[in-house]
């Protein structure tokens, strides 16, 4: 599968996907680590993808999303944003609802 197909496969088959540097327990960048903390604070189920292990997908996703940095959070197949936006949504109290809605739909 080419990288774009794999990206679509990931974001369409998982309600919440975080593309990040490293893993949730061992993030390789402070911004990725911060994003994980907000998702965990919301008690969200999420799939992560370590882009450091896949240079081809790492470059392809930047093109696909018109977003040049990581982390990138996808909910229901749509780009929500990077660290700044995730933080804004968390501070506004919206993030938990978005995540719960996406997770809830997936379970129903």
């Amino acid at each position: 599968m080419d990288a774009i197909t794999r990206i679509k496969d990931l974001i369409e088959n998982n309600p919440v996907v975080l593309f990040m540097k490293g893993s949730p327990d061992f993030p390789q960048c402070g911004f990725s680590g911060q994003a994980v903390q907000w998702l965990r604070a919301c008690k969200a189920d999420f799939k992560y993808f370590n882009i450091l292990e896949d240079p081809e997908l790492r470059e392809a996703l930047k093109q696909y999303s018109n977003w040049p940095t990581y982390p990138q959070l996808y909910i229901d197949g749509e780009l929500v944003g990077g660290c700044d936006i995730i933080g804004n949504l968390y501070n506004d109290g919206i993030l938990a609802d978005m995540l719960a809605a996406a997770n809830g739909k997936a379970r129903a």
Partner: protein
Amino acid sequence: MITEQIKKLLNEALNPEQIEIIDNSAAHAGHAGARSGGGHYHVTIVADAFEGKSLVQRHQLIYKALGDMMKQQIHALGINAITPTEYSKEL
């Protein structure tokens, strides 16, 4: 100066009413992401161009304007992108 270059590109692309760029690179020197040499910056930008746009779309406008700078010179960019109307409410 990278901050000047960021300012120039954003001025040209978005014609902002206000723009402020802060270089936070020193605070991140030596961490894994800074090894490639890219700096950490924060931009506050007030522009009509953001009217009616979502946060994602606003950030995408900025990333597009900065183009190749995001590949090398900039490792991380904090963004506060607001419209003149929103800005006047913040005062």
